[in-house]
């Protein structure tokens, strides 16, 4: 039996429904627990105070990528943002910026799904059809290490919410999808560099990036999409000059 007054923390949560004229912020008091993350607080609100609050989550261990939101203005995984970092509050939770908001914290990610598909993120092989699955393709640990970092993306889209270019251009393929293209281009098992060339090098591809670098700063999985894009630019530039100056070295 404790008589001590429970510490609480104030939440200001972005609320929007399609039949509302405009969004509002709703205030909630949530009991403070040292080991709670923002997602625990949202679940507390939904379960005990207000079942209409709408947001996505599943794994609550930072790997499914569904729970991203702006927490006090910064893109965060809500399942990895501890309340203790924000004491004494208040904590403002909003949907990721640079996306359409369908309702409350739920954004539309259809545009991203199209961009993801556009970079052809799968192994492309000339022998694809004749694959007999008798043994694995060999790949040394060093070759594996060359692309491993770029394969760690959980599609949480925090990087898009941090990217000023994405905020002004719908078309920009953006950090996560370009990093994924680079991941496959660097994989020794892949032979699809040529096929991905046009998408990556077109106006909405790597050259639209002005290297703000904030995507890499917010990435919870240390993917470094900004690095991936710069490396692709470097390769692209070298390739351009090679085609220009030494056309005979380029396979047709």
């Amino acid at each position: 039996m404790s008589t001590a007054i429970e510490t609480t923390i104030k939440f200001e949560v972005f609320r929007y429904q399609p039949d509302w004229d405009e969004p509002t912020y709703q205030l909630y008091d949530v009991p403070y627990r040292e080991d709670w993350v923002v997602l625990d607080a949202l679940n507390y609100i939904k379960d005990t105070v207000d079942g209409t609050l709408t947001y996505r989550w599943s794994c609550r261990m930072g790997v499914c990528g569904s729970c991203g939101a702006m927490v006090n203005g910064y893109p965060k995984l809500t399942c990895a943002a501890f309340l203790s970092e924000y004491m004494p509050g208040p904590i403002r939770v909003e949907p990721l910026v640079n996306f359409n908001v369908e309702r409350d914290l739920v954004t539309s990610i259809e545009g991203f799904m199209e961009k993801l598909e556009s970079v052809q993120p799968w192994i492309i092989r000339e022998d694809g059809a004749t694959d007999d699955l008798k043994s694995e393709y060999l790949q040394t640990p060093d070759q594996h290490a060359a692309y491993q970092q770029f394969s760690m993306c959980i599609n949480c889209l925090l990087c898009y919410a941090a990217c000023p270019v994405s905020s002004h251009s719908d078309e920009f393929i953006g950090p996560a999808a370009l990093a994924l293209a680079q991941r496959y281009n660097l994989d020794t098992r892949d032979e699809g560099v040529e096929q991905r060339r046009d998408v990556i090098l077109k106006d909405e591809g790597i050259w639209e990036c002005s290297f703000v670098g904030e995507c890499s700063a917010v990435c919870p999985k240390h993917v470094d999409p900004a690095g991936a894009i710069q490396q692709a630019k470097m390769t692209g530039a070298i390739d351009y000059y090679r085609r220009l100056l030494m056309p005979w070295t380029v396979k047709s």
Partner: protein
Amino acid sequence: MSAVDQLQHDVLVIGGGGAGLRAAIAVAQEHPDLSIGIVSKVYPMRSHTVAAEGGMAAVIKDNDSAEDHIYDTISGSDWLADQDAVEMFVEEAPRELIQLEHWGCPWSREATGHVAVRPFGGMKLQRTWFATDKTGFHVLHSLFQTCLQFPSITRYDEWFATKLLVDDGRCQGCTAIELRTGQLRPIYAKSVIIATGGFGRIFPFTTNGAIKTGDGLAIAYRAGVALKDMEFVQYHPTGLPGTGILITEASRGEGGVLRNNKGERYLADYDLGEPLPLDDPRHPQLRTMELGPRDRLSQAFIKEQEKGNTYSGPYGDYVHLDIQHLGEHRIDTKLPFVRELARNYGGIDPVTESIPVRPVVHYMMGGIDTDIEAATSLPGLYAAGECACVSINGANRLGSNSLTELVVFGARAGRNAANFAHAADPAAIDRLESQVDDERARIRRILEQPSGGERVAELRRDMTTTMEEGAGIYRTQEGIEQTYATLSDLRERFGSVDLDDRTNVYNTDLISALELDYMLEISLALAASARDRTESRGSHQRTDHPDRDDDHFLKHSLAMRGDDGTPEVSFRDVVITKWPPGSRTYGSSDQAKAATTES
């Protein structure tokens, strides 16, 4: 709505996790003429396969053999696995894993460029392939990205399947709610594959994500298909207290050890072999001590708890998992995710401290009754993955066999569903429309019924509490009957559930209510099966019937939904081919036994 606007496919896959995606790709690759739909309540890359850490078993190394993998699986299952299914599974596994490799899965490698393998609990040899300790994540993303290349696949992302459409004795599609608009629509198909994953969320403390609510089992069960071996619930011995986040078995595979509050490696007292010193090059020994099977390790925890040998904390009792002796470099290269999770969610750095762990509900051996072809008893309906029960897992699944099961049986389900679709007539839309209307009415009732006073979250809490009490690691007749009664009562109370949210767009309150309804349905089936199996086998331990009883229970339980909505349990013989039931031994006695069988 005219027939042209109808959503129709040849093969419909419900579930976009590892099993569902593998099934869809199997259809797309081998039958490019067939149109495929994938319905998933979350974007496929959010599926809980993403959380699997440790690895995926398949025989690939020269020192290993199919025979060994089969034996480990069968003895691990406490002889409840169907042996024909296990043989097939083990034989097809390597090819499926190589297929994943060719689709880009970034497996960890040996210096030679070949894939690397690691030890895992209950396996006599090292045969677990891994992609650091994010295996499931890499497998899921590789499958998802691979599936993007097939134009014949249409995805219904964030559509929630609610019911199967059945006419003329065959499954012809499902109804689903599109979350973005709140519309309920039929999706017709010539054959349907359920791949909706497990249902750990019926328990309070689980490694399973929020989406693992067993919807697929419930809708198959309501369509008249049996649920098999539901009483077998796997507790993983090492979850973080509080959150239930998993610390993978690979941490023990790499050499991590469990200690009680006296600092002892207590597993030595539970017939799991002799501990070797940590600096002995033979440590960790396979099928011994920390590398024993999960059921036995979780049971040992409860015994230690009873002896007062556990630590206690705000989230219950726990023991220590110690990996410090592996050193920072090994931890960072082999177990980086373990370190990340322990730091972020346990507040400790495993390089310098022991990790507090306790048993946590992890995996469901039971599921939709299918045969070795992934077919259910309802023509046109297939099931694969954790939601299905073939069974290769029997009374206890071996770690790293599940991911393999997803691809082996996912692919089978895909191929068989495709063949079925080739021969079948299109769905009889006219005759199915009334079922769609009925389903719409059912959901509208839940959505719109006037205030009945029951909250979804409270009912859910009561359900998980009673499951833990009556259907936990150790069970009794009385406890299970109490749980059964409480569940029946909760079902009653669900009738007056009162939603806060009565709107259409992204109504997650409604979805939670539907999930709760499904969970209550299958929890009852689980409790009934646990009540009727009056023996102890694998993960099902009855303190009132402590022994295995092969005379009566070398059988699968089958729960069918009766006319009054309550489960009726019957039993079916296990398929035994070459491995007659033996005693399940681990540790040195096991080595001795293995030596004698080999000689």
